[in-house]
């Protein structure tokens, strides 16, 4: 893309993309830390994760203000308009990822005991790995303006959903076997749901990156099916 006649406009767009990338980095770290605190029952890490969310929130507000200002001052058109609207939506998604991570960290403190099932821990870790990879890849796709990579992220979300469904069933089994673990399992279930939703936010971001780059909507080629609704 060649440069704008008004060079300050280019600087603003670059700065905005930089801030989105920074938000992405913070959200990624918050998510990884929250799950690592959960798996290893690290209360200190959980607390710092909760505290760090404020930075992401502040950055989000800063980005929103900047975007509104750019719309008012530059009246963006075409590619610029798509960049700016996409940035606004992506910033919202990243802020939500941060909130979900924070919620996982809060539950670490509430559970107050490690995951007593190795199998469950592995399930949560595996799901996190996938969801985290989704977040990383979609942020990469955003930075590189890569519509094809964004499309792959959207497709891969089905795997995260599948693991969530199997974790859900497993937790249900534990709760039926031993009512004393219900509290812990419900917290874990919420954690798993949060991770699954982080995956959904990665998909949202992917759709916005695709639109930003191509100007076309990314076709939803898979059925949105939450299999857990049928399992109850």
């Amino acid at each position, binding site marked *: 893309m060649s*440069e*704008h*006649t008004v060079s300050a*406009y280019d600087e603003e767009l670059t700065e905005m993309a930089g801030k989105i990338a920074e938000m992405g980095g913070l959200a990624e770290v918050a998510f990884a830390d929250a799950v690592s605190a959960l798996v290893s029952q690290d209360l200190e890490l959980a607390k710092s994760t909760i505290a760090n969310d404020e930075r992401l929130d502040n950055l989000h507000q800063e980005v929103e203000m900047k975007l509104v200002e750019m719309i008012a001052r530059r*009246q963006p*058109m*075409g590619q610029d308009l798509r960049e700016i609207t996409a940035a606004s939506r992506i910033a919202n998604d990243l802020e939500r990822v941060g909130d979900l991570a924070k919620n996982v960290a809060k539950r670490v403190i509430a559970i107050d005991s490690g995951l007593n099932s190795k199998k469950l821990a592995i399930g949560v870790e595996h799901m996190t790995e996938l969801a985290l990879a989704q977040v990383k890849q979609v942020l990469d796709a955003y930075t590189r303006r890569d519509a094809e990579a964004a499309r792959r992220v959207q497709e891969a979300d089905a795997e995260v959903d599948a693991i969530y469904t199997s974790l859900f069933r497993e937790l249900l089994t534990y709760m039926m076997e031993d009512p004393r673990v219900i509290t812990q399992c419900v917290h874990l279930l919420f954690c798993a749901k949060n991770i699954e939703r982080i995956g959904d936010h990665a998909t949202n971001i992917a759709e916005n990156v695709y639109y930003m780059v191509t100007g*076309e909507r990314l076709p939803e080629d898979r059925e949105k099916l939450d299999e857990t609704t049928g399992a109850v």
Partner: protein
Amino acid sequence: MNEMPSIEQANAMSDSKISANKVQVYYGDTHAIKDVDIEIQPRSVTSFIGPSGCGKSTFLRTINRMNDTIDICRVEGSIKIDGEDIYDPKVDPVQLRAKVGMVFQKPNPFPKSIYDNIAYGPRIHGLARNKAELDDIVSSSLQKAGLWEEVKNRLDEPGTGMSGGQQQRLCIARAIAVSPEVILMDEPCSALDPIATAKVEELIDELRENFTIVIVTHSMQQAARVSQRTAFFHLGILVEEGPTEDIFTNPKDKRTQDYITGRFG
């Protein structure tokens, strides 16, 4: 006066109002418009945008043969309005310009009263049989142009004494008075302040119920606000034409993209 068409008539007119085919315009040796093909829909607003010197005004002026007045100007190709070639030797340019009215960049009321500004066209075209009919045309034209309430008590005052925005709406009322089908506007708001501009834009939006409007504008925001279709011209070529929302959110051609985002040159 213009009567609202019946539904059947409206359906029958769903084809293009203006149809340009392989249009070339030369000023002496300069090839100013190259191979322009465009279909302009009836009862809608089409904007022509593009950098200065891209040919958008030149092309606009081919639609009512305003270029005929320039000696060294030569037009080739065909421009049809309702299927009729307007460059056919049998077509009288004066009659054509009654059918295809024009509003210019700078308001140019005649140095006459407000009333006579509007009545001038109907008089020379013999559209009114008596004073009462002429009064009707004047009042309904001013009403359609949204100017009636502001001027009804001072119709005998000179048109040149009005504000710029009022003068421009007076010129639009004057164009409407001869019952045109097409109204061409060449940067009609570039000399107006934002409020007067908004009033003209509101008027354009109302007029498209009854007229086919083609507007040349340097303001992309204005094109985005008032038109249903937008055409981008560059170096005498029609680069891209399409629904306004597509041109401003997802143009297909890189030149359009560069122009609308302010990356030209």
